[in-house]
């Protein structure tokens, strides 16, 4: 069993990490054409992301959208999760369920819906469109993490602060918010990363006016191999790892992912 287990785990790790390693190796290639193992060592394709005007613009677009969408999603999610938890409002619970739905359905359906909505009111191609669309699409993430955070606020903590003289607002500010904040941050970070990597909704809402990185990469892919894509993939992977490490550090990652304490 233990030999079998080791072989399986090794194969699994190779399968999972292999493609990422290949991409990383290719990104240091000196030449413009594709080769593996790489020929020479160069960081020029990393420099290219920041030097080449169009790639840099896309990067900034993606970052702006991801930050704004994640903020908006948390702002929409917090009151819903809070009222559902604190007062058990049936209406808040219904909103909660609605807010989860976009994330479960195939994203192309939401993408098409947003496209129809924005064209029917005649507001096309603005960055705010994709920000709102991403916030709604990814709303499930802060909803879930924030309610997990609120559930970790034991009722006795609220009562304890009341017995020490805290009124409603003070309880919220000094007890509930500080305990729930790391989980809200986790929701924010999840949203940020997924928005950064999202393709189809960005394409259908603003694909022809505000090019995000995934959209630009896909467009570039159709014209053959471009080594910058490899370096972007590595940068994205690093960003993802950094963000999730932050969540693990400041919040309870295994609990957010469904393990019991």
């Amino acid at each position, binding site marked *: 069993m233990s030999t079998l287990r080791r072989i399986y785990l090794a194969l699994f790790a190779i399968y999972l990490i292999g493609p990422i390693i290949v991409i990383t190796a290719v990104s240091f290639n000196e030449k413009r054409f594709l080769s593996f193992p790489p020929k020479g060592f160069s960081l020029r394709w990393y420099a290219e992301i920041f030097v080449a005007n169009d790639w840099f613009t896309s990067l900034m677009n993606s970052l702006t959208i991801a930050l704004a969408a994640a903020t908006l999603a948390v702002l929409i999610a917090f009151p819903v999760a809070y009222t559902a938890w604190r007062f058990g409002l049936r209406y808040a619970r219904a909103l909660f369920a609605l807010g989860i739905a976009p994330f479960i359905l195939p994203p192309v359906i939401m993408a098409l819906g947003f496209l129809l909505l924005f064209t029917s009111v005649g507001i096309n191609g603005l960055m705010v469109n994709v920000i709102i669309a991403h916030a709604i699409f990814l709303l499930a993430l802060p909803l879930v993490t924030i309610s997990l955070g609120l559930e970790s606020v034991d009722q006795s*903590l609220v009562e*304890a602060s009341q*017995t020490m*003289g805290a*009124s409603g607002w003070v309880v919220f500010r*000094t007890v509930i918010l500080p305990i729930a904040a790391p989980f809200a941050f986790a929701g924010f970070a999840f949203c940020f990363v997924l928005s950064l990597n999202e393709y189809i909704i960005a394409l259908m809402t603003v694909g022809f006016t505000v090019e995000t990185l995934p959209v630009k990469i896909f467009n570039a892919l159709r014209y053959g191999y471009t080594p910058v894509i490899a370096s972007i993939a590595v940068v994205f992977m690093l960003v993802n790892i950094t963000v999730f490490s932050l969540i693990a550090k400041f919040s309870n990652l295994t609990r957010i992912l469904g393990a019991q304490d």
Partner: protein
Amino acid sequence: MSGLKIEGVTKKFGSLTAVEDVNLHFTAGEMICFLGPSGCGKTTLLRMIAGLEDPTNGTISFDGQDLTHVPVHQRDIGMVFQSFALFPHLSVAENITYAMRIRGHSRSDREDRATELLDMMRLPGLGDRRISQLSGGQKQRVAIARALALNPKIFLLDEPMSALDANLREAMQIELRKLQQELGITTVVVTHDQTEAMTMADEIVVMGRAKVLQTGSPMEIYKKPIDRFVAGFIGSSNLLPATLTGDNSVRVGAAELRVGENRAGQGAGADVLLMTRPEEVFVRAAKGDTPANAVTGTVTFIRDIGATIEILVDCDGHEVVSVLTPKDWPDVKVGDAVTVEMPESACMVLAA
């Protein structure tokens, strides 16, 4: 009108009555224990004193001031929760000075007070610890320090020992009692542990099924329980079915016994219970004739734990326990026929 006064307090949750028509009055500075099995309403009563629950009927006042509708955060109380309810996002010192912080006390005042309280609770230097780094006993001391930070008028504790190890409990009970006497603060403790109540309380309130069954000092309740429920809850007791033959005499099986006190409120002929405490009855080896005020039986088990010896006797299908000191050892073994002497002063009659 000094002290804590509870008048006609009832609490209903839907169709369930958690507390029914409770009337109590305690002198300021006393330590009071609400004692009873789980679900008897003692915690609900405590939470109404705290202001965490609104009474359905009745009033609660302290030193003549009606508190019934004062919101919890304006009540000037300190409360220790069963789970301690320490804030996980704050350090030990921040927990202790939470009440001061939200009232805008200066940082230096808070630090001074935190140091003072940590010293008082014998936790010096732990102010910067995280709550998760504390042991159960330390958590409890922090919870007590936190509740006392602003010298509240009423100190409330909800099952404060239940999260502690058994060996830590007794030491903590004594310490808490000493602290309370030192501070002279009116204190209410909820517990289901009779030893805890007897160790700490000036007054014990025995509760059962939403009602107050008996109120009194620990010794009053131990010596003169009002009924078999209270007798069973405070200390252990032997209960034998008996028939009253006069105001102060009963018949148990063939034996006739004189009793010290009749609390059944019934006269001759009534079926009652004869109650005795295990340490007040004595087992003797049977020698022909039965002595006065005694029943006969057979030894079923002997538990010798050094300081005391416990002998279980089967008396006509009913178990009687006798706890003896080694000097009273009757030299019997399991299976021996014995007599159990029940001195008149130790015998009490309760309603069946």
